């Protein structure tokens, strides 16, 4: 045994062959080592070896080969201690080669050189060869550096301490080594400060990592502060409240994550002995939490927190719908994560909005305590409701007596009430574009606005809440409105809009008979009833020629009533006739009845939404003009009848025949003029406009706004065309004034003609009496002597007649010229009508030639 050992020593340590002392020493040393024992178990050993082989070459070829060899070895009868041999080989295999070049740069770290001459003084536990082997293999440069640092007294802060701090930071709490600086920034931005501790260093890469992680903590603080702040405050909008709720839910999720992370960290800490940082590191690498792992875990939340923080920032300035809008702005994002998050948020946040919308859309109620909806209600008008006039139920009482009796007070009442209708409709609810969520779209927003307004109007102004309530019930069966179902929303809006506007039309045209009123206005104020107008004018004209202050309203109304009775107007519904009234406008000194008389049509709520006071003023204006035209026409035709009839029978003054002829020519021209104007007004303006309005009404589409608008268009068109208004600013009424001048001239002409007629009449009588005298009959002796001076008087009269005639011609010519270049096509057609055979042009040419 010693000899074999000796030979082994010789073969392995060639030097020992010559050196006897060395050889003996080594042999003894080896013998000592050999006095150890291990019990054999070949199966286990084979497993261990296999595992070892698998580690070194994972493809399994060597393992297979080893198994093969092992089985063959086991077959061999020679060896009695196969296990021992294998174990020997394995021991050698596990221990790798000693490093060929011991690291030179840190001698202190090199493995201690084995003491050559004191073999027993170094019991390097031969039974457990792994620790030194491991130390030799596993030491990376980083580890070496760390060890060096530890030795020099500036160790890095161990990671689990930093980790703990970081977890605190994630919750916005300052840690021991890292903390947030007290906020000095006005924006509340905190700075991250690392505690300077000479005993511990935090490496820069770790600092950067912590900075990344701390961002989440910082964002968390913001969001949390926002939620806390809103929680305690009153008067926070519902949309904001639901935003807070959503944020809070998200934060709870976040807390859950933190808790999981924390528990993971604590298990690693308790499982290891914290005194040895190396050990901790090794373990943490395998199972526990590291900063980098934390970073990965948090990554998702970083984005989410950023989104939330952005929302929170935006929420400070925005309110209600604008807030929804703001969030919706982020929904258009290519990143599916952001999109999904925003969608969720929107779904949550828009819920109160949609409940308000639902209420508004289906029942016309604005339930918006924090004024977040895009419809705002005017607080002054919110509770204004109408008390319907008593006679309105159509009971047929003609006399809502106060309408005829009380002069001043009643009118005031009416006008006060009238102010309300349109004003209520137009300004009770306001559309706030900035509050409209973008996903609804402005067109739909307008529709929603209009629908709700219509419903509200039906409910409160038209006193039709039953219908609205039924509708509301019906609508509740259909699904709810929500953000994710925009298409359904649009459908519901469309249906609701249609139903509401249809209903509004129904209410207006069937319950309140708007069409009847419009027709009545056309018939009475626009002189559509010819017989009524003639009748009225005939009975009124004697009294209207008197000064305005001698007229009394009761006379006028009585005349009006008799005119109605004696014309077809009596067949109109009493509700219409009840509203018709005659009155005088404010008059000043010197005006006569013609100037101040006017018909009036009274409307009340809710019709006055369409027929607002302004519109009524326009109607009165039109009536005034048309009434004047009618008067002129009447005057002229009366005069014409007188002249034409008289000339044939008793106006036999042969030397004045020529004058009469001239007068008839001028008068014919005047009649032509006035008839054309009248026909133009009635046919081309009133009837055409009426047709357009009627077509709109028949369609029954659109809402009340559209109805008001179309009526306004109808009225404006008539005003513009009948009054011949030109679009030129400042000279709108030039033509109208000219036409009015012409009217005056015609009246003056008629007066002069009357004078001439009277003269001729007396002259004819004188001549007759002269002739009678020749025959011996003295009939008008005294009178004849009275008229001696008449030849001068007739000159004077004829001068007036000619002057008026020629000035009429001139004026008409100017008017026709102006009309020919009028901006409005219909007005130009009037010019064509007036100067049909180029009458005025040829005359102008004649004038120019002469």
């Amino acid at each position, binding site marked *: 045994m010693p000899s074999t050992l000796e030979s*082994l020593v010789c*073969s392995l340590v060639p030097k020992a062959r010559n050196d006897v002392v060395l050889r003996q020493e080594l042999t003894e040393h080896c013998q000592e080592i050999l006095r150890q024992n291990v019990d054999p178990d070949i199966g286990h050993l084979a497993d261990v070896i296999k595992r070892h082989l698998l580690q070194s070459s994972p493809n399994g070829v060597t393992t297979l080969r080893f198994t093969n060899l092992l089985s063959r070895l086991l077959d061999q009868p020679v060896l009695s*201690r196969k296990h021992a041999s*294998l174990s020997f080989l394995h021991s*050698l295999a596990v221990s790798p080669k000693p490093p060929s070049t011991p690291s030179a740069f840190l001698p202190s770290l090199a493995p201690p050189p084995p003491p050559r001459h004191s073999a027993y003084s170094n019991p390097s536990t031969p039974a457990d060869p792994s620790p030194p082997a491991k130390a030799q293999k596993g030491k990376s440069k980083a580890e070496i550096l760390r060890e060096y640092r530890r030795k020099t007294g500036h160790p890095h802060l161990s990671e689990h301490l930093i980790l703990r701090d970081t977890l605190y930071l994630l919750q916005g709490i300052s840690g021991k080594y890292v903390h947030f600086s007290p906020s000095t920034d006005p924006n509340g931005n905190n700075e991250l400060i690392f505690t300077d501790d000479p005993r511990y260093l935090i490496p820069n890469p770790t600092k950067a990592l912590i900075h990344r992680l701390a961002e989440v903590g910082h964002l968390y603080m913001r969001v949390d502060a926002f939620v806390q702040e809103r929680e305690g405050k009153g008067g926070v909008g519902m949309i904001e409240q639901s935003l807070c709720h959503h944020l809070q839910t998200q934060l709870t999720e976040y807390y859950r994550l933190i808790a999981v992370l924390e528990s993971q960290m604590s298990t690693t800490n308790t499982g290891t002995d914290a005194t040895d940082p190396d050990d901790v590191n090794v373990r943490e690498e395998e199972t526990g939490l590291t900063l980098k792992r934390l970073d990965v875990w948090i990554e998702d939340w970083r984005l989410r927190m950023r989104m939330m923080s952005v929302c929170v920032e935006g929420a400070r300035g925005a309110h209600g719908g604008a807030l929804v809008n703001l969030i919706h702005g982020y929904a258009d994002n290519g990143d599916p994560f952001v999109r999904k998050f925003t969608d969720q948020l929107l779904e949550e946040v828009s819920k109160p909005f949609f409940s308000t919308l639902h209420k508004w859309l289906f029942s016309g109620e604005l339930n918006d305590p924090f004024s977040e909806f895009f419809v705002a209600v005017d607080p002054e008008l919110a509770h204004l409701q109408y008390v319907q006039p008593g006679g309105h139920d159509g009971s047929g009482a003609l006399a809502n007596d106060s309408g005829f009796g009380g002069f001043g007070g009643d009118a005031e009442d009416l006008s006060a009430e009238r102010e309300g209708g349109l004003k209520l409709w137009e300004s009770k609810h306001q559309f706030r574009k900035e509050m409209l969520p973008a996903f609804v779209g402005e067109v739909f927003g307008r529709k929603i606005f209009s629908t709700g307004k219509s419903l509200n109007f039906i409910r409160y102004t038209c006193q039709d809440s039953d219908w609205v309530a039924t509708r509301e019930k019906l609508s509740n069966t259909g699904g709810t409105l929500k953000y994710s179902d925009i298409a359904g929303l649009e459908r519901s809006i469309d249906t609701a809009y249609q139903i509401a506007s249809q209903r509004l039309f129904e209410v207006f045209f069937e319950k309140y008979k708007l069409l009847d009123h419009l027709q009545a206005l056309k018939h009475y104020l626009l002189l559509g009833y010819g017989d009524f107008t003639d009748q009225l004018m005939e009975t009124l004209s004697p009294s209207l020629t008197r000064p305005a202050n001698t007229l009394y309203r009761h006379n006028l109304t009585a005349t009006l009533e008799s005119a109605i009775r004696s014309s077809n107007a009596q067949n109109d519904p009493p509700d219409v006739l009840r509203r018709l009234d005659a009155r005088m406008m404010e008059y000043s000194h010197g005006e006569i009845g013609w100037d101040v008389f006017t018909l009036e049509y009274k409307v009340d709520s809710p019709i006055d939404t369409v027929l607002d006071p302004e519109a009524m003023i326009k109607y009165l204006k039109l009536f005034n003009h048309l009434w004047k035209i009618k008067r002129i026409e009447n005057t002229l035709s009366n005069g014409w009848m007188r002249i034409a009839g008289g000339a044939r029978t008793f106006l036999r003054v042969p030397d004045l025949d020529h004058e009469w002829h001239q007068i008839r020519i001028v008068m014919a021209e005047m009649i032509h003029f006035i008839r054309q104007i009248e026909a133009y007004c009635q046919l081309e303006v009133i009837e055409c406009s009426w047709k357009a309005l009627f077509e709109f009404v028949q369609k029954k589409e659109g809402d009340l706004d559209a109805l008001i608008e179309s009526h306004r268009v109808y009225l404006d068109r008539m005003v513009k065309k009948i009054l011949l208004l030109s679009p030129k600013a400042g000279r709108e009424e030039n033509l109208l004034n000219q036409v009015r001048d012409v009217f005056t001239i015609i009246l003056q002409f008629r007066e002069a003609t009357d004078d001439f007629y009277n003269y001729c009449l007396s002259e004819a009588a004188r001549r007759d009496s002269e002739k009678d005298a020749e025959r011996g009959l003295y009939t008008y002796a005294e009178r004849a002597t009275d008229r001696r001076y008449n030849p001068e008087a007739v000159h004077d009269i004829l001068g007036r007649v000619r002057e008026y005639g020629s000035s009429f011609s001139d004026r008409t010519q100017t008017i026709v010229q102006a009309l020919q270049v009028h901006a409005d096509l219909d007005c130009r057609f009037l010019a064509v009508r007036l100067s049909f055979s180029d009458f005025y042009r040829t005359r102008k040419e004649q004038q120019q030639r002469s």
Partner: protein
Amino acid sequence: MSSRESDRISSAQQTLDILHDISQLLNTQLDKETLATCVGMIESGVNPEALAAVIQELRRESQALNAPRNTNGR
């Protein structure tokens, strides 16, 4: 008698070959002679792990002996 002897020798040779293969698989860096010696020692009752320690010890020793000579020129 001689045939049995030769059988024994050949089987011993085979065993040694197998062991050598295994030792090469395991990268023990033992040559055949050393291996034979070691196996013989193990057969005679030496603790194998201890023997491995011995081998390592010896290797280190030889290296330590070589190293100073290389650096110091001894």
